[in-house]
């Protein structure tokens, strides 16, 4: 009985930790200087937060109802797989659409490889598009 109680507490604490991490990550998203660093905050710490929470929920249901939720495990795995891919894609999109790096970041090594030569012509279009979408 006590074990159950403890487990439930563990779950609750996990959830709490998750929520705190999520707030921190959200602050990161606000404070960090450019999209690439923000993406770091979003994908990494948020994933951690959600996993903590889901784990908490999993433990809670396990201890409280004796119910092993496959869906929750699947969910955890799923987030685990997809979050990095999503982060990767969005950063790549950002880079390709030439969202500028923060001023204090180091050298941009990809720039010369990606945007030089024949590709430059096509990127002009994207830049223009970006400009039109950035009317603020």
């Amino acid at each position, binding site marked *: 009985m006590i074990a159950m109680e403890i487990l*439930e*507490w563990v*779950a*609750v604490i996990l*959830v*709490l930790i*998750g*929520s*705190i991490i*999520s*707030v921190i*990550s*959200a*602050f990161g*998203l*606000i404070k960090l200087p450019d*999209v690439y660093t*923000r*993406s770091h905050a*979003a*994908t990494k710490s*948020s*994933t951690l*937060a*959600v996993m*903590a*929470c*889901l784990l*908490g*929920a999993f433990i*809670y*249901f396990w201890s*409280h109802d004796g*119910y092993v*939720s496959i*869906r*929750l495990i*699947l*969910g955890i795995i*799923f*987030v685990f797989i*997809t*979050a990095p*891919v*999503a982060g990767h*894609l*969005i*950063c*790549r*999109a*950002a880079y*390709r*659409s030439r*969202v500028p790096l923060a001023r204090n970041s180091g050298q941009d090594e990809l720039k010369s490889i990606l945007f030089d030569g024949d590709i430059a012509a096509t990127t002009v279009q*994207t830049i223009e*598009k*970006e400009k039109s*979408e*950035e009317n*603020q």
Partner: protein
Amino acid sequence: MKETILLLALVFFMVAIALLLYRVIVGPSMPDRAIALDTIGVNLISAIAIVSIVLSTKAFLEAILILGILAFIGTIAFSKYIERGVIVDRNGDS
């Protein structure tokens, strides 16, 4: 007590979502917004999980999974849109 903590956690998540909403609104770039929305989705997953605990029901576990999937699909769609302006390519060469 446990419930209070859970509700507190929910409040935290809401705060996080509110902050992210700020990012969605302010930008400045499209990827920023897309990331923020993605993160809102991810945070909602957690929030739904907590609500399930509070209501002690298993009815929403599918929603968690679905939300995970959809946040992913959404992000892919956005990133493709930002990158190419087109979501569905006509053929593999483009």
